[in-house]
């Protein structure tokens, strides 16, 4: 068996001088790592024929910090803060995914109140993340006003987090055995106010962007990802649902209190950018629905079943847990030898990692400008890819 190991340079050869000086040549262009579309730092090497994209070679790793190596030296409580810094736009859900795995492994049972608070917060965060995505999509497609509207509303949701949690972005809130702080007395009233506001502004979003002929022209029938291809590429979240596969862990394997609330799994029909756009817009409405059902139904009880700082003993073996973040399935593989505090191996199956590669399947044949639309519709968070 011989295995050939390549380098990027093997792929990215400059085109050789053609026989005729007038012949057209394919050429390579680097999109990123410092590029507005990089959303962080992703490098897309584009093989172009004029404006048409022939091939996309994503080169991740510009924020690869080695979280998995770091996690091998930390105890489960300390690893929580690393999960914040993967997909920072769904930090709470990342916390939850890890806590869920640890709880399942160590056999920690939580109370109904804790699960309700977690679900509530996760849905608010999903709203925040989608609102931000909507703004960024607007910016990428040239509608800067959408960007600022999106951030205005993100800020309004963020204030609620700040009041409860004390952090704006990297929350470190959901811990094994509970949540860090209890919700405040006026939380319910504020959330209701927020929901009223958000219902109104999502309508505004439709007026400003969704109903715009130019936006629809930019998204409809662009970047079609078939369901088979999406599954084979391991895409999850709105990307997979946009292709018409109703795979949502909140429904398929309910966690938290998702089995007690009513909501619909939103799916698209064609798998184009417009479907992915609509899925996210509709998911915002579904999140509002979930929050509406839960906000008055938070049971009484403690917000933490474990003593804070108590050691967590993870039994020997492999433990796997996953849940649905705003971008797809975040899986946590936790391997412990049963002796040391620190796990033997922690692996995060990040949704963006798999979603990123969809771009290699979608992009060929479209224009440079469509790459922007496609990448925006995939809603990638680069540090989550790189970890």
């Amino acid at each position: 068996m011989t295995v050939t190991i390549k380098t990027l340079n093997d792929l990215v050869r400059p085109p050789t001088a053609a026989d005729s000086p007038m012949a057209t040549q394919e050429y390579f262009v680097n999109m990123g790592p410092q590029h507005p579309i990089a959303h962080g730092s992703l490098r897309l090497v584009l093989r172009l024929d004029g404006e048409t994209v022939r091939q996309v070679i994503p080169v991740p790793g510009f924020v690869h910090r080695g979280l998995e190596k770091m996690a091998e030296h930390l105890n489960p409580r300390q690893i929580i803060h690393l999960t914040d810094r993967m997909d920072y736009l769904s930090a709470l859900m990342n916390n939850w995914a890890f806590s869920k795995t640890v709880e399942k492994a160590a056999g920690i049972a939580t109370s109904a109140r804790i699960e309700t608070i977690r679900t509530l917060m996760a849905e608010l965060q999903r709203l925040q993340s989608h609102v931000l995505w909507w703004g960024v999509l607007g910016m990428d497609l040239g509608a800067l006003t959408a960007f600022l509207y999106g951030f205005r509303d993100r800020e309004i949701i963020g204030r609620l987090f700040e009041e409860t949690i004390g952090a704006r972005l990297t929350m470190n809130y959901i811990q094994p055995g509970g949540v860090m702080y209890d919700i405040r007395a006026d939380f319910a009233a504020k959330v209701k106010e927020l929901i009223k506001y958000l219902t109104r502004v999502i309508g505004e979003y439709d007026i400003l962007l969704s109903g715009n002929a130019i936006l629809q022209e930019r998204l409809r029938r662009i970047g079609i990802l078939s369901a088979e291809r999406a599954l084979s590429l391991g895409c999850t979240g709105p990307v997979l649902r946009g292709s018409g596969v109703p795979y949502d862990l909140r429904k398929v394997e309910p966690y938290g209190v998702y089995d007690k609330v009513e909501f619909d799994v939103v799916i698209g029909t064609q798998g184009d950018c417009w479907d992915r756009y609509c899925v996210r817009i509709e998911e915002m409405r579904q999140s509002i629905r979930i929050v509406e059902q839960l906000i008055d139904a938070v049971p009484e009880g403690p917000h933490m079943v474990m003593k804070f700082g108590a050691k967590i003993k993870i039994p020997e073996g492999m433990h796997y847990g996953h849940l649905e973040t705003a971008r797809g399935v975040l899986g946590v593989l936790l391997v412990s030898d049963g002796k040391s505090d620190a796990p033997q191996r922690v692996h995060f199956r990040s949704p963006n990692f798999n979603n990123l590669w969809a771009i290699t399947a979608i992009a060929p044949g479209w224009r440079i400008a469509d790459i922007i639309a496609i990448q925006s519709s995939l809603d990638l968070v680069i540090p989550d890819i790189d970890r």
Partner: protein
Amino acid sequence: MTDRLPAIVERVPGGAILVTSLDALMNWSRSNSLWPLAFGTKCCAIEMLMATGAPHQDMSRFGAEVARQSPRQADFMVVAGAIVKKMAPRMRMLYEQMAEPRYVMATGSCAISGGPFMYNSYTIVRGVDEIVPVDVYVPGCPPRPEAFFWGLLALQRLIKQGETIGRPGIRRKPVLAALPQGITIEDIREEVRRVLEEENVVDVAHEAHAKIWTERVKQWMAKHLYKP
């Protein structure tokens, strides 16, 4: 010749006044027109570059909303987020592509020191000051948008007192944003000024060539970039 002109003018009777007032105009304009280069790699990019431009914070009040994507047109680089070894030469390249006068603001603990990834991470660069000279540090993980404005105002103050056309290419070194608790920059102003004037003045032109990273970038470019 143009470099020496201000020094010559200064010796002419009345020339010093001219140079000083030109200095004032220059520093006023530079400090009030800071266009950021959006160099966000991680979480801080959301807070430092996007949320600061958003309606609730609004960095356009300071005239800093003209975020340029091309380093040629930017005035200061906001390093928002962790820099890893793969990114480091690219970042240095971006810095060298910026036109003088250029400033660097390191925001967030990752950019300042490696922050939460300081230990056991095999790729992190512990502080961007290893790569580029940093003017202002804004601590936090991530810092609040208000902290960004603190940094922006600190940078403005630095520019206002720091530069003179009498010595082009020379500019003062960092003001530290993270002072011990209870001490403001006003308290140690004299001290800072003395230190800055005596020892900590950097020759930008010299520094750009002496920096170890310039060499590294050259090597890196030779290895990774094609010569047509």
